[in-house]
């Protein structure tokens, strides 16, 4: 794989060449209509961007020539320099030289830009309308000009979506062919299908790779946003960005954009204190906000860390009781993680006042729904007085997910691994009927357990989630899933393997049956239903 630096360089060159083409077009226009301010402004903008980009990546010659040209055009714009024939020639030469420099950026034999031309540029800039000094003849650059097309293309994300869908279909058929070839036990077919397997896999990764963008493309929008919110809130905030180079699927980044913006607003308006308060609390005057990204196995973990006042658990308890989400006597004993998960409930807000940036009723539940929709997870850690951290765990790619396969009542199901915590086997005697639910002790933690067959297949009026006698067999396989800091054990009939699956979304009229995240086809051609852990958890809570 190419180094990141190489990739940046290629992007720069492609962009610069595009600028170069646009400059040529505009300056030809300008020659015909010297009075067109609009064209002039566009040339000015292009040169300015080119200068800045070249400087940032270290191509100083390009940046220097662009600078000189920019100066010349600014004089023309201010009517201090006339767009006369002589000047036009020099400017055309200058732009040609830019093109030359850009296309030969990696060519060490290129040497310095022609000093005569540089001097000509200086002359028209320095002498203004006083053109007594002769402009020297420049050797023509474009005598042997060759046309070249850019190495980069822009592509609509829609087309990549389509491509990825097709690859998903192909993978399903591939698995089917592979499984048939094993059944038939034909050597030739087996060798062809294993080759097909490798090619499809490579195709899958190539398409996924083509969709990756750096997290930085979103992160880099935040310094300005943070500054604006901080100014409006009269706060001082220093934003730190870490891990901008981490790559993630473009659509996933798109979906979390609003969520991240929302969390950042919250952190500044509700998290970070005003400078005076911070000094009183013995903290530095300037609040610290950090956006970090890192890879964790198949996932990308994005954290938003602030060192503000943290979340007041007392207020959360009170709000939870006020909204009757939990009885007053229970709330005192809830673990912190579970308590904080109430912040994601719809309509749950601790904001006392609506400000320009926060507290407009769009709550954390919206953020949570967005993260859920791409199969991600979100958690909060907070310490009063010290600050709050939001942790977003996101899949790198939408289409292919690691999943755990199992069977309930002769139907195949899958649960994405991002929601599974562990798998345990337990004797029926270790499951306790408490109230209307089953409880089990899993590694020292008491977890509600539910028999999926009962939850999915029994008639609503005869459903008995807390009845051990409904279980089949002595030893139970339990998948521990976690959603919103709450763990839930799902008892399944048969446990199969872990496998990468291509999730197909359900089409109408089944698309809004939310306990299913989609379906997939197994190698055997059988349909496998993909359970949506957030919805199953909610369904369980509502049933209870």
């Amino acid at each position, binding site marked *: 794989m190419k180094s990141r630096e190489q990739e940046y360089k290629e992007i720069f060159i492609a962009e610069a060449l595009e600028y170069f083409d646009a400059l040529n077009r505009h300056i030809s226009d300008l020659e015909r209509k010297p009075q067109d301010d609009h064209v002039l402004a566009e040339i000015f903008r292009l040169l300015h961007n080119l200068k800045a980009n070249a400087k940032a990546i270290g191509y100083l010659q390009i940046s220097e020539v662009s600078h000189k040209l920019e100066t010349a055009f600014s004089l023309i714009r201010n009517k201090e320099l006339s767009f006369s024939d002589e000047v036009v020639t020099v400017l055309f030469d200058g732009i040609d030289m830019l093109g030359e420099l850009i296309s030969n950026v990696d060519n060490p034999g290129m040497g310095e830009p022609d000093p005569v031309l540089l001097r000509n540029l200086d002359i028209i800039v320095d002498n203004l309308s006083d053109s007594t000094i002769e402009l020297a003849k420049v050797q023509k650059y474009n005598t042997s000009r060759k046309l070249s097309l850019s190495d980069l293309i822009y592509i609509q994300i829609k087309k990549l979506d389509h491509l990825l869908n097709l690859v998903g279909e192909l993978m*399903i058929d591939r698995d089917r062919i592979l499984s048939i070839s094993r059944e038939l036990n034909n050597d030739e077919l087996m060798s062809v299908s294993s080759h097909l397997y490798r090619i499809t896999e490579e195709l899958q990764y190539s398409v996924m790779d083509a969709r990756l963008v750096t997290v930085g493309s979103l992160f880099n929008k935040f310094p300005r946003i943070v500054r604006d919110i901080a100014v409006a809130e009269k706060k001082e905030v220093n934003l730190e960005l870490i891990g901008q180079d981490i790559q993630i699927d473009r659509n996933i980044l798109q979906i979390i954009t609003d969520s991240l913006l929302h969390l950042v607003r919250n952190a500044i308006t509700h998290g970070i204190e005003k400078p005076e308060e911070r000094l009183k609390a013995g903290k530095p005057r300037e609040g610290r906000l950090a956006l970090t990204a890192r890879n964790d196995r198949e996932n990308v973990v994005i954290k938003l860390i602030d060192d503000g006042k943290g979340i007041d658990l007392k207020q959360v308890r009170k709000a939870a009781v006020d909204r009757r989400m939990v009885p007053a006597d229970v709330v005192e004993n809830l673990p912190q993680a579970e308590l904080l998960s109430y912040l994601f409930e719809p309509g749950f807000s601790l904001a006392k006042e609506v400000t320009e940036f926060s507290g407009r009723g769009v709550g954390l539940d919206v953020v949570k729904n967005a993260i859920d929709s791409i199969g991600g997870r979100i958690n909060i850690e907070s310490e009063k007085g010290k600050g709050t951290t939001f942790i977003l765990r996101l899949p790198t790619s939408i289409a292919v997910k690691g999943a755990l396969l199992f069977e309930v009542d002769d139907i195949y199901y899958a649960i994405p691994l991002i929601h599974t915590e562990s798998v345990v086997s337990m004797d029926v005697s270790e499951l306790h009927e408490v109230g209307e639910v089953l409880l089990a002790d899993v590694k020292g933690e008491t977890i509600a357990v539910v028999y999926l067959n009962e939850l999915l297949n029994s008639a609503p009026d005869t459903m008995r989630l807390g009845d051990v006698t409904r279980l089949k067999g002595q030893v139970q396989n339990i998948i521990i899933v976690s959603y919103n800091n709450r763990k839930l054990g799902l008892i399944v009939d048969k446990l199969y393997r872990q496998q990468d699956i291509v999730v*197909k979304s359900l089409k*109408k*009229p089944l698309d809004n*049956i939310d306990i*299913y995240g989609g379906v997939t086809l197994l190698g055997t051609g*059988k*349909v496998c239903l993909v359970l949506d852990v957030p919805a199953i958890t909610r369904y369980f809570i509502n049933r209870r």
Partner: protein
Amino acid sequence: MAQAKKGANPQTEAEVNNTEQASAPADNRESSPKNTRPEEMVHLVVFKLGTESYGIKIEQVKEVTVTPTITRMPRTPHFIKGVANIRGDIIAIMNLEERFGIRPAPVPENEPVRTTYTLVIEAKDYSIGVVVQEVPQSLNIAMSKIDKAPSFLQDVSINENYIEGIAKVNNQLIVVLDMFKILTHDEIKQLVS
């Protein structure tokens, strides 16, 4: 699947084809009264629900196939039998008898397990399967044979919006359904239990 014959024969008012996979020769003809100008024809796929005949316009039917393996989907309405893999597409399979509360035709005792058929109905952006008991027939009839608004419609359990009309052919009564209306109706959108 038998394709609709373009430019219908004015002498034939009804033409019933056997439509199991391939088109079979017409097995039922009826002479029409003298009719000089060609009439507008409509091609129906006719099937049984309960003991009665129902028809769907052939444009709404993508294909007819022997019902594939259906994977039951818990917590969906009773008339959704589940999902099935039809040529790589996973589509919902619906039972219209259960949907409209039609009593299934009595099954003779000692009958072996019957093959059922699935009509794949194609709506704008998705497909759905409809299970029927017998081999569906293809029928070409004159548009004028369809009575658009029979007065008894208010009395039947099928919402009148779904019924395009009633056709009478060879003393046979065919209820012509508009599948698109059935599929787009709000009721089916609110499947969530």
